């Protein structure tokens, strides 16, 4: 299958390893991957802040960039939700509505793609560690990711998954919310860190690097012994 990668801006700039891991896993499974190098951002920061015209200006380019793609696989639940659910809303009633819908139909989040589309749960990964899984909200509630990442983790050799209490609770990131209301965002992050710490896991794993950025940033500042890792990175380990 020819797969067009969707690498969100902050993964490109801060967490390239997450994108690289996804590409490697897909290639190992025998697929051909390509990447539109001019892709930057899906427009979510503007959309979430109420600047829909600005978001549309960025999103229009994205639609054009992926126009000829057969299938698009992205490595973020949140940006994935933007390209599927929210593009439809953003372009509703505009001339690009049909294209946004067609685009959404081609988009897959990485874990969902592996499990639902390809029917693969064992990607041959090995990672001897105790991990707990954080459900990123957009992935969970907009895209319905719940069983998929867990099915993949269950097949990683040596890995033990310990569920934390309130795994479905928001970590407090929420995009611009984190800087507009840092006090609330931080408190939510503290609650999340506490739940994760109680499991004694070595890593918090998630489908969303943005949640992990928030959790790790907070844990580091508060000197909490927590390490985070994206699901793609876990699946790339051999």
């Amino acid at each position, binding site marked *: 299958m020819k797969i067009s990668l969707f690498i969100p801006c902050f993964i490109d700039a*801060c967490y390239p390893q997450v994108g690289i891991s996804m590409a490697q896993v897909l290639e190992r499974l025998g697929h051909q991957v390509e990447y539109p190098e001019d*892709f930057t951002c899906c427009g979510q920061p503007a959309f979430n802040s109420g600047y829909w015209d600005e978001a549309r200006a960025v999103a229009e380019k994205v639609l054009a960039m992926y126009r000829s793609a057969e299938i698009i696989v992205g490595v973020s639940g949140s940006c994935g939700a933007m390209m599927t659910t929210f593009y439809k809303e953003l372009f509703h009633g505009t001339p690009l509505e049909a294209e946004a819908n067609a685009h959404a139909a081609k988009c897959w989040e990485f874990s969902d793609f592996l499990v639902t589309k390809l029917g693969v749960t064992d990607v041959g990964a090995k990672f001897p560690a105790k991990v707990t899984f954080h459900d990123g909200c957009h992935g969970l509630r907009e895209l319905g990711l719940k069983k998929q990442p867990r099915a993949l983790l269950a097949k990683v050799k040596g890995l033990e998954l310990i569920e934390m209490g309130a795994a479905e609770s928001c970590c407090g990131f929420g995009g611009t919310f984190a800087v507009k209301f840092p006090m609330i965002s931080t408190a939510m992050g503290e609650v999340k860190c506490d739940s994760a710490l109680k499991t004694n896991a070595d890593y918090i794993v998630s489908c969303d690097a943005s949640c992990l950025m928030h959790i790790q940033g907070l844990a580091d500042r508060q000197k909490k012994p927590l390490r985070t890792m994206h699901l793609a990175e876990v699946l790339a380990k051999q």
Partner: protein
Amino acid sequence: MSTVAQTFKETARRLTRDLRHRELIQNALGKYYVGRDEKKARFQNWQEARQAAAEIKWDAVNHLDKYLEEFVSKLEARGTKVFWASTGQQACDYIVEVAKKRNVRSIVKSKAMTGEEIHLAQALEKSGVEVVETDLGEYIVQLREEPPYHIVFPAMHLTRHEISDLFTKKLGTAPTDNPEELTMIARRTLRKKYCAADMGISGANFAVAETGMISLTTNEGNGRLSTSLPKVHVAVIGIEKVLPTLDDLALFLPMLATAGAAQAVSCYNTFIGGPRQDGESDGPEEFHVVLLDNGRTRLLADAEQRDTLHCIRCGACLNVCPIYKNIGGHTYGTTYMGPIGSVLTPHLRGLKEWKHLSFASSLCGACTEACPVKIDLHHHLLQNRRNAIRCASPWWEKLIFKGFVTLMNHPAFYRLGVKLGWFGQKFHWLVKGTRLDPMYAWTQSREAPPLALHTFKDYWRRKKS
């Protein structure tokens, strides 16, 4: 920033640091989650029940004209006086007038969020009438002279100890930590009030068009006493409360109890269809129904957010909201707090002043998932944000997003930006976490993620060549 937004931020800052508050709310809600899930499991299929409820509400809200008329004509046929109030002020004036005419000196009030919404108790007190809340939680917050903390659990933020202290101070009773004794203290005081009251005020959980009845749900029986002992009963009802048929309650009563209070069904469900009829031995001599618009028809005209009128005020969205759990109910400064409050308040009180509530959300969607009538709460928050920016946005923010578009739509600029950022971050330590830090909003409490020397784009180029 509006003053209410400023106050919101300051209170949020204080409460999010208050670990005692955090623990108290978490513990209280922890029990609720367990009970709610247990009761949800009693439904054959909770998701289908939600769908059915949403469809019934959709029908009711989209045919309000028909159902309200049916409701009113049935009520009037049994001698009920119905008043249509466009605004809260009109509703208050009407009720004050009724109280005057009937020489009312004291009123017992069963819990009614509509009453809170229009500041009814204050209006009546100003006219010289005593108003006593009869719901235990409401009674407690009334004694504390503060608004309810939650739309279903008004005194959820208080410990037994605090309630005991309050009773000792206000009622002169002996201190006790025993919940039963505390309840008995309130009960003894309230019983006297019921017997002396000339008027009872209630809201309604549902208004049944088919039979012309209001449905009232309580757990303490205070609704029944407040509405049947006094000579006059006034019910203040939002126009969206109407349901087409009595049968609908077979779904809505257990649903409200489950989502709202983790109960299979509430302890007391009362249906009232008029004042005391000839030959009946009890009930009020006069029954007034005040149908309240107060901004609801504006919401009705908004096709995008009309489903907000489905709300049955169960409070489930508050209970699962991580924002609510961390900042508490009073911080919002609104009648309706939590997700539904953040969606609704800009419509009821003005977007300009209340838009901050729609931004104070991580958009996690836990509310939408919990809502028994499937209101698309978190997407409405997004729409409120869009509307807020359309009507007014700060120039500097506009500039930032113009810059954002330029950066993202020119990959060369973007790449350069990332490289400059990588270079700039070497000097970040000089200002990190201080007010001079351009990333202060983040770094005041969190470490910033380091920009990578080799980005994914770099990797891809290398891989290709």
